[in-house]
């Protein structure tokens, strides 16, 4: 099953490699990983998407908790949560296709943030499957490149992951 593990970690040099190293050393897989400092600059928040059986996920969370730099973590998949991913897509456009691509981006609540004579860059956020659906709806011959942030998320309600 897919799990989203949200981690508060000391914002120190090498902290990210401790997490990445743990996954490769123990043979766990990382689907995506995003990290940035929080409102408290001494802490970073990391969101890690992984897959595994319940036993493997239990080991992953225990092994992560053992890392000295990790302050707290939660498995968002265990609670109701919201998740979002950011994607930028660069597509080829021509006279005939420009209108259609614009409409398609509108339908998916995307924004066109760069325009040239023969290309658009479309910005889109949403759950990962929505982004997948948008990419599928585009003609793949038109896609020049895509970049995705990997999902991030928060649990719903008033509780949160903080010190």
């Amino acid at each position, binding site marked *: 099953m897919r799990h989203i593990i949200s981690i508060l*970690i000391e914002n120190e040099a*090498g902290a990210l490699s401790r997490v990445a190293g743990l996954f490769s050393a123990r043979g766990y897989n990382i689907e995506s990983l995003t990290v940035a400092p929080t409102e408290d600059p001494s802490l970073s928040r990391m969101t890690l998407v992984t897959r595994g059986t319940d*036993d493997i996920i239990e080991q992953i969370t225990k*092994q992560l908790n053992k890392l000295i730099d990790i302050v707290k973590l939660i498995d968002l998949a265990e609670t109701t949560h919201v998740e979002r991913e950011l994607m930028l897509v660069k597509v080829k456009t021509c006279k005939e296709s420009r209108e259609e691509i614009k409409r398609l981006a509108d339908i998916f609540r995307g924004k066109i943030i760069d325009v040239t004579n023969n290309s658009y860059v479309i910005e889109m956020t949403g759950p990962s499957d929505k982004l997948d659906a948008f990419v599928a709806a585009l003609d793949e011959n038109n896609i020049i490149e895509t970049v995705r942030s990997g999902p991030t998320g928060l649990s719903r309600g008033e509780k949160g992951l903080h010190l």
Partner: protein
Amino acid sequence: MELSGGQIVVQCLKDEGVEYLFGYPGGAVLHLYDAIFHQEEVKHILVRHEQAATHAADAYARATGKPGVVLVTSGPGATNAVTGIATAYMDSIPMIVISGQVPTAVIGSDAFQEVDMVGITRPCVKHNFLVKDVNDIAETMKKAFYVATTGRPGPVVIDIPKDITDPNILVPYKYPKKIKMRSYSPATKGHPRQIKKAIDLLLNAKRPVIYSGGGVVLGEASEELRELTRSLNFPITQTLMGLGAYPASDKQFIGMLGMHGTYESNLTMHESDVILAIGVRFDDRVTGKLAEFCPHATIIHIDIDPASISKTVKVDVPIVGDVKIVLKQMLELLKEQKKKPSKNALEAWWSRIDQWRSINCLEFDRDSELIKPQAVIEQLHEVTKGDAFITSDVGQHQMFAAQFYPFDKPRRWINSGGLGTMGFGLPAAIGVKLAHPEADVACVTGEASIQMCIQELSTALQYNTAIKIINLNNRYMGMVRQWQEFSYESRYSQSYMDTIPDFVKLAEAYGHVGIRVEKPEDVKPALEKAFAMKDRTVFLDILTDRTENVYPMIESGKGHQEMTLRVAPGTPINRELA
């Protein structure tokens, strides 16, 4: 007080009460070595190879419970230490390794003797630090000692660039009394509800067994373990790392378990209905084939490390906490209980165990004209009155020592259980002897292992650590040869050496006493002679039976119930299966 970075490191060691620093100088740590020169409290032990510094410090920690401290230079000094750091990591030994690093300005430029020590050691340390400011040294040192010695202990590396120890830069020094880390708070007490559950299970067990390990030694919980085991009258088996926590001479002890464990302990595990696992990690050498591990048992597991629980074997009642505290909680709760374990059930259980015991699975050919390694260990036990510190290397001799030297006290059996590091024994013996100068210290080794750190004979002379080296010389890498005999139709690929040095002359060349022993009747007199020489290191080169194997054995991929025994139960002992 204003000090330089180098002086601060040494002052921190003094403030931590460090007695010995095991190390080897080099460019990046010269400022530090100059600070060491100007003081006498922290005694520096100069090894001949950095690997030995880590093993000696590690063994010092195993023998005393205090953290071992190592100082090495950057680059090769640091990488040479890695084997010893990994050894300590696998066995959860508290250790501080200070490594020099090239100056901060040139880090990352492939400078002379530069290596990314923090990166290299990341997977085999509990934690590591790179110090980038002289003002951070004291706090980092405090954190390192705190992390290394609390919770599940382990090695911590502190990498210090040369400019941080510059003698010309002085900063105020104050060693923190206490340290709190928001990201690290090891568990202490066990959850009362889990403990209640465990007690209920234990009191209703019909075929219980206690399976105890290195965590009991590390957690100083021998006394509590003894009290609990005796009050319940349960059988107890111990892992390789746990030997000595419960006295081996006690009748409730049924021997070590696992690959080379006793017939009775492996079968007791296999047939049990409740297992109380204490400070163990269900290592593959203990469990054998996981799918067949203890099929009838409900398992209670006490451990300080939550990640050890249900890692390989699914546990029914996990108790996370400090072993000593949890065992105390259990003893208190037991005292309040009216119910006692069923006497009848336990009697029946013990009579089955005694039956298994009666096949005498460790017995060997005592009439052989060759020296049997088992007999050497038995006589070592006799000559040292069972009260020596025994270090070992890795292989057959290690298993013979574990099987034939019954340890009655914790911290007496010093071996590399998890990583299985050949070369550990000799430097370990030096570390132990420094910690306990009055005690008998023997290194049980083989002619292959001993050559991996043989240069430390020189260190032993320099510091006059009078250790006894028991070299069970079978002219083979015994354990490799045994596996090749069992699994590769006796194709002994690279498991022997054509040229083995004359160990007697070698010992003499290093300034020690060397004695060769070739006949069974000469073993005991030689041991007595060696231990009578209180102030000399003695190298006993004992030529043993080349083809002796370690039994019982659970071959890889098999379960506890599928042991290979030396002889089938009931047949005479000198008819070997192999």
